[in-house]
């Protein structure tokens, strides 16, 4: 032990997958993929309107990595320091080799998390996961009402989710619930938290919808009002006071309603690495929307090359890529200019400041989006659900609703 006081300096890094701007310093000379997200398939039995998966996911459902390729990716990432493993999708349980992946993850020393809708989770499988050493299961819940659950997921899964929650608890797993918040359930925050408490939840993430992929297409229909978000946050804080440490509640504030952009993914290529179903390696969930980028693939050069050498991972590391107003901004190390995908999706220029920033010359686009969400005509447009059929349309170029967001201001 050194003379260093143990007080505040104790924790060198405290990192949460959901938290933003949490003090993890930008450091382009020492990056480490602490978090590995394995999006093992884009296939999914649900059709959630807020899914962040790419709208053209259908073209990535072919050519999924094999079990052996996943196991190799796990080994390679672990050598580079990866420690938190998320097994996600799509719905990961649509693959029948999750059991093998879990066993390997345990062997390698990962803290592993299965991120699931619950569809496909059986007694037999959960027992195999427990025996294999899976550390926890994160279940998505949508609402306290059957109507809204079934509506927003475009499936009849409400009863199933309650059964799965009980199954997770019975197997001694921590109960981690993820609830994506949008206009249709934001009025039920108190009831959602009460449901979580009744189910014995240890962690609840109230994740306000972020607008990428399908949720961007449906933005005007999903976005709640600022007043609703403030009220939801107030109720959440009250609930937190009441339950204390027994149930940890994360409230992820939507960046559209803040003045400062989020430090997206804790910085491009700093701590997160995503391997997608077909082996593409990404620094963030939606990076594939960015133009003129060639993302590395595990089948070609492997993960170490992807993280350290690939032009894509180096492109937006640090601050060298910035232009005005970011480049001279005193806040630039706090937010690293915000989200590249959001900048591109909304302004057409991936290197511009995230328009969420009040200093961005394109900030009016955010104000307009907020205005549009109050527009009853736009709000009553039909929601476009995440289905293979709709995705095929996007692949085929039927993109009228998306191009509206790609257009330069």
């Amino acid at each position, binding site marked *: *032990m*050194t*003379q*260093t*006081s*143990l*007080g505040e*300096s*104790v*924790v*060198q*890094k*405290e*990192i*949460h*997958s*959901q938290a933003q701007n949490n003090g993890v310093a930008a450091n382009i000379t020492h990056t*480490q993929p*602490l978090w590995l997200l394995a999006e093992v398939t884009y296939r999914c039995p649900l059709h959630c309107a807020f899914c962040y998966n790419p709208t053209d996911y259908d073209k990535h459902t072919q050519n999924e990595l094999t079990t052996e390729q996943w196991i190799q990716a796990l080994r390679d990432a672990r*050598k*580079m*320091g990866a*420690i*938190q493993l998320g097994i996600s999708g799509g719905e990961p349980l649509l693959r029948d080799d999750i059991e093998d992946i879990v066993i390997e993850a345990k062997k390698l*020393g990962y*803290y592993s*998390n299965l991120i699931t809708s619950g569809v496909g989770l059986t007694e037999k499988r959960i027992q195999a996961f427990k025996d294999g050493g899976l*550390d*926890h299961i*994160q279940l998505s819940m949508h609402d306290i009402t059957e109507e809204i659950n079934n509506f927003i997921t475009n499936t009849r899964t409400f009863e199933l989710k309650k059964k799965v929650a009980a199954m997770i608890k019975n197997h001694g*797993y*921590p109960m*981690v619930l993820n609830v994506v918040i949008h206009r249709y359930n934001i009025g039920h925050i108190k009831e959602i938290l009460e449901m979580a408490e009744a189910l014995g939840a*240890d*962690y609840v*993430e109230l994740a306000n919808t972020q607008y990428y992929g399908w949720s961007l297409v449906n933005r005007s229909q999903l976005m709640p009002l600022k007043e609703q978000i403030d009220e939801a946050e107030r109720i959440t804080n009250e609930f937190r006071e009441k339950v*204390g*440490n027994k149930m*940890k509640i*994360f409230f992820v504030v939507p960046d559209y309603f803040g003045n400062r952009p989020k430090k997206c993914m804790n910085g491009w290529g700093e701590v997160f690495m995503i391997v997608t179903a077909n082996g593409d390696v990404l620094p963030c969930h939606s990076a594939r929307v960015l133009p003129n980028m060639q993302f590395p693939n595990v089948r070609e050069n492997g993960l170490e090359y992807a993280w350290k050498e690939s032009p894509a991972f180096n492109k937006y590391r640090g601050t060298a890529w910035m232009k005005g107003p970011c480049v001279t901004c005193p806040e630039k190390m706090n937010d690293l200019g915000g989200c590249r995908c959001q900048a591109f999706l909304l302004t057409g220029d991936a290197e511009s400041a995230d328009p969420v920033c009040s200093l961005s010359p394109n900030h009016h686009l955010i104000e307009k989006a907020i205005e549009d969400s109050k527009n009853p005509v736009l709000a009553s447009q039909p929601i476009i659900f995440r289905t293979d059929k709709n995705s095929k349309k996007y692949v085929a170029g039927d993109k009228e609703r998306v191009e509206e967001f790609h257009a330069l201001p």
Partner: protein
Amino acid sequence: MENNIQNSDVFAIALHHRFQWEEAQQSYVILFPEGMVKLNGGAGEVIKRVDGKASVSEIVADLKRTFPDVENIEKDIIGMFEMAYGKAWIRKL
């Protein structure tokens, strides 16, 4: 939550949390759903001894023996217990 640490208290790593040495980072970490904490050397030495058996005073005595030159070590150790308990990384038995 009451953070007052007594000498006779016995702590264990909290349920669903895992404490381990990370070779790639040359440090101890605590892992839990959706998060991780990287501990510096001193903090790691304290949490390493939290095993559900040793009392706070036994851990203090052990660390004093191991690091005889560190001044005010007891205060630092208790501070670490307070923080870890406050953050619910450890639980009182």
